[in-house]
């Protein structure tokens, strides 16, 4: 597998090291209302309004791969991400402790789950 990877990824296929920003040991599931999507390189962003136990709402910024990577797993079509609907995002929290995370998988409003990043499970 390692040899295959070397052959298959001779140059950058991704951007920064995710491990420089996010902690694979801090898995976090966020359920909330989608406020905004930024469809840009190198990373797309989902902004999710999540209500805490005390009722306070925090907007989490969840980064993920760029649009071409999202297309690779079939998430580029219109309608999959709609502002105002409820999404559950499996994430890894940022090392710096901010309201920022890296997307692992997304549960769409109709219940379908799409894995975007396998994180440490790929080790």
């Amino acid at each position, binding site marked *: 597998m390692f040899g295959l990877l070397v052959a298959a990824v001779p140059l950058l*296929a991704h951007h920064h090291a995710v491990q420089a920003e996010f902690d694979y040991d801090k898995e976090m599931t966020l359920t909330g209302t989608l406020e905004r999507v930024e469809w840009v390189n*190198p*990373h797309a962003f989902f902004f999710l309004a999540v209500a805490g136990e005390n009722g306070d709402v925090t907007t989490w910024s969840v980064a993920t791969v760029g649009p*071409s990577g999202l297309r690779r*797993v079939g998430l580029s079509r219109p309608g999959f*991400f709609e502002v105002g609907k409820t999404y559950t995002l499996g994430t890894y929290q940022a090392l710096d402790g901010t309201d920022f995370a890296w997307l692992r998988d997304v549960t769409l409003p109709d219940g379908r789950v799409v894995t975007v990043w396998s994180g440490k499970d790929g080790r």
Partner: protein
Amino acid sequence: MKPYSSRYSVATVVAIAALWLGPMSVGPQGAQAPGAAAESIPTPRAPDGKPDLTGLWTGNPPTTVDTGQGDFVTGIDARGGNDGTGAGAVNFERDSTLSRRSDPNKPMYKPEFWERVNYLDDNRNVEDSYFSCANPGVPRQGPPIKIMQAPGEVAFFYDIYPAGRTYRTIPTDGRPHHPDRSLEPTWMGDSVGHWEGDTLVIETIGFNVTTWLETPGYFHGYDLVVTERLSREGNVLHYQATAEDPEMLTEPWVMNPRTLNLNTLAWDDPAAGLWEDVPCIEKDLEHLVTKEHH
């Protein structure tokens, strides 16, 4: 199939995406050993008798875009599948750093420059302008994703993740370097080409010192001269680049050769053409905690 022309019902997703495989990831096509069939096809020739390099050189990436019926791709994640196997990367980032550093093909810097190379490699998250949306430049951006060849001129098109699209137009009519442009330091320099038999040879000068020759901190000086060689064998494109920088290197550095396959998919296949690019907006730097990179 219907092209991706439907309007978004809600203004959530604001644009559709970049390419399947930019030049920074064409390697997988080379990793799949080009079939003898692709090379044995007669090489198309231009009216002037030269090989015609025109084409979309992305090979045939696997088509994994969903059908719109909920049939999402499974068994890979967004990193996987580039090699056509559908296999995800194993501890992708740390492994790719190791593999890159262990490549025995390194530029031979003069002794006094290795400390700088190591510093830049260790601090790539902040020192590598490519991480902040800048063009990686020549030769790091590798071979073009698309070529259009005309008499006396070729046009190279690139789609570079995450920087975006760029192009080069290169005269092949024997003219010298441009007297002004070749003096202005730029990411892709000033290029002139000529044919040596069936090989297109491109010489480029006039670089800035922001770009690197390759990812592990391989910086260079203003005197860099890059020579690229392209040849077509049937539906296979061979690409090689050599970097000469006598100020810093003890000998020319011949980069690992690249082999690209022609994309022969039907026009309406999602992986057959160029997707609209998206802007590159860097937001990660403020959150970087460690120096890890890949």
